[in-house]
């Protein structure tokens, strides 16, 4: 069975109508071509319908269309399905998705980190350059510098080491997301570092290189002060980028538009774009996978609602009865609609029963299948001449026991409309995995009985997922009360609402442990 993936696109698309200044156009990617093609295909219908004209009431009329050709075109709507030569909308979306997948990795994704890397290397090398250059250029003229300098060398070396390690630990990570606009704090810090180092170089050039300064100890102290300053900037970076947003300040409600799945998250002070990345991180592991087949009411219920009445007047003058007719139609339609909830209820009950029946068959089949194999331990005799047993590796074992359960599995997946997510191959792989790790049938079935989080169904893909951030405010503004933004994909979107967490007034009440006393409830009766 071909599996159809929901999310297999590449990078974030740009969204900003205002221009952002200067450095790093990495933030300013905008891929018009891709977004247009996706929009076009997303607006089209995914399902193909053939809508018969009229309703059962008028079937007799409509099939005699040959007799009234002039009216026939107005009242009928026929949408043809796929023919041999035409391409349906489904194919279009699939083709566009495949196109996105096959395009090469965008270099802009790595521009920012590379820039940061260069800058930090430059900053780290600078103190060493400060120390080395005088030695190289005018070694003979330098004043000798004894113990204090050696102490400074040691401290310098250790500080540089600390800087190096902490930079590596904190900042040298593969980027997890590309944001539509500048990441303000990061840009600020990079500018700060650059200005700092540049000004140090300026002073160095003017005060040390030009006049060929002889006080070497002063130069070493100068380099040490630069390293101190860099350490403090790194502390600032740590606070701004990593620590500030840890304390929760807002509560985000995330709702998926197609099926109403919702979650609440606590988040700290972030800008909208960073909050969006944060939410999406959690979306992939918290939200159950989006299944488009489960979204709508079954057609059998809806189609009855969609048909309306057509009122025919038998007498000649139709002008007077027009309002009466429309009112009658509305009233009749309102009364007709009353029955559909009943049908919906019975359909749901029936569906539940069907699912449970299939599930019980599946569980029994899997349990029986698992009893057919057992693990062979090293010390057991592999085979005897009378009862030769074939020793299999996990893949073969999985294939051997898959056959009896395949049918039950397929029927179950079909009933719960999960079959696009699981191909036969993936089921076999999962079975092999479970056998290898000594899992019980229940553990094997856990994957299929409940719809899992989206991340479980993702293909390994270096391109990433494409989301569009839709917001009325510029996306670098900080979160505040009442803000609403949404994250859009071709199939659905997530609407995020921000509410502040309430201010807590915590009071205190001291209870003496000896103050817990009780009395019996009395109801005595005395005879007098």
């Amino acid at each position, binding site marked *: 069975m071909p599996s159809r993936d929901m999310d297999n696109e590449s990078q974030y698309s740009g969204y900003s109508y205002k221009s952002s200044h200067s450095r790093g156009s990495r933030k300013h990617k905008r891929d018009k071509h891709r977004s247009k093609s996706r929009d076009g295909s997303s607006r089209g219908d995914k399902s193909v319908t053939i809508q018969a004209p009229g309703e059962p009431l008028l079937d007799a009329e409509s099939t005699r269309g040959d007799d009234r050709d002039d009216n026939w075109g107005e009242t009928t709507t026929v949408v043809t399905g796929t023919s041999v030569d035409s391409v349906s909308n489904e194919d279009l979306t699939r083709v566009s998705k495949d196109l996105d997948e096959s395009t090469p990795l965008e270099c802009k994704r790595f521009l920012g980190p590379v820039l940061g890397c260069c800058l930090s290397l430059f900053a780290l090398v600078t103190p060493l350059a400060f120390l080395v250059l005088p030695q190289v250029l005018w070694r003979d003229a330098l004043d000798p510098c004894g113990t204090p300098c050696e102490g400074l060398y040691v401290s310098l070396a250790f500080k540089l080491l600390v800087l190096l390690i902490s930079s590596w630990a904190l900042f040298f990570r593969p980027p997890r997301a590309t944001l539509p606009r500048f990441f303000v704090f990061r840009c600020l810090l990079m500018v700060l570092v650059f200005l700092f180092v540049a000004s140090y170089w300026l002073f160095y050039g003017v005060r040390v290189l030009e006049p060929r300064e002889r006080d070497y100890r002063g130069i070493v102290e100068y380099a040490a002060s630069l390293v101190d300053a860099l350490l403090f900037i790194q502390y600032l970076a740590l606070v701004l980028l990593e620590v500030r947003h840890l304390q929760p300040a807002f509560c985000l409600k995330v709702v998926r538009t197609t099926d109403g799945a919702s979650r609440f998250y606590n988040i700290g002070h972030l800008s909208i774009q960073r909050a969006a990345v944060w939410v999406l991180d959690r979306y992939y592991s918290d939200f159950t996978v989006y299944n488009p087949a489960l979204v709508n009411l079954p057609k059998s219920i809806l189609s009855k609602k969609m048909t309306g009445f057509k009122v025919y007047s038998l007498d000649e003058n139709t002008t007077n009865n027009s309002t009466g007719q429309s009112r009658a139609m509305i009233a009749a339609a309102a009364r007709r609609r009353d029955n559909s909830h009943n049908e919906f209820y019975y359909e749901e009950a029936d569906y539940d029963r069907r699912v449970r029946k299939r599930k019980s068959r599946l569980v029994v089949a899997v349990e029986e299948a698992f009893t057919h194999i057992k693990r062979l331990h090293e010390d057991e005799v592999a085979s005897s001449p009378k009862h030769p047993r074939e020793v299999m590796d996990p893949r073969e074992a999985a294939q051997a026991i898959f056959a009896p359960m395949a049918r039950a599995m397929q029927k179950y997946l079909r009933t719960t409309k999960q079959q696009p997510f699981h191909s036969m191959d993936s089921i076999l792989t999962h079975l092999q995995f479970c056998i290898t790790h000594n899992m019980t049938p229940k553990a094997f079935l856990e994957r299929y009985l409940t719809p899992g989080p989206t991340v479980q169904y993702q293909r390994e893909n270096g391109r990433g997922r494409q989301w569009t951030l839709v917001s009325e405010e510029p996306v670098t503004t900080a979160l505040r009360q009442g803000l609403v933004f949404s994250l859009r994909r071709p199939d659905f979107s997530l609407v995020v609402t921000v509410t502040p967490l309430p201010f807590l007034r915590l009071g205190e009440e001291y209870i003496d442990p000896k103050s817990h006393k009780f009395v019996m*409830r*009395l*109801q*005595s*009766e*005395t*005879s*007098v």
Partner: protein
Amino acid sequence: MFSRSDDVSFIPGQPVTAVVQRIEIQKLRQGDHLILGFSIGGGIDQDPGQNPFSEDKSDKGIYVTRVSQGGPGEVAGLMMGDKIMQVNGWDMTMVTHDQARKRLTKKNEEVVRLLVTRKSLEEAVRHSMM
């Protein structure tokens, strides 16, 4: 003698009005004790929620819970469920259970004159008015 009534429930600060009946009970000597032939329940130190006879479950008055057959109480016309308002002029609406017992079982009194109230009295008065 019946007095005009409103209701028997207790509103703090307001005087309680009730239709009452005077009952005079002659104590019966049984060995060393003088008995009246009924049991009381209630009191301000008791739990009013468990009183089966009171209408208002926060009423902490003294109620007659049992009347022994042929005893002095029954003879005098006391009925089960009566609320005792006064005993020999002493108020019984705001007393503890033990105080009530003591007021009823004074050794030097042979006769106790009670003012009791019950729901049927009020209805009887209303009927007679109409």
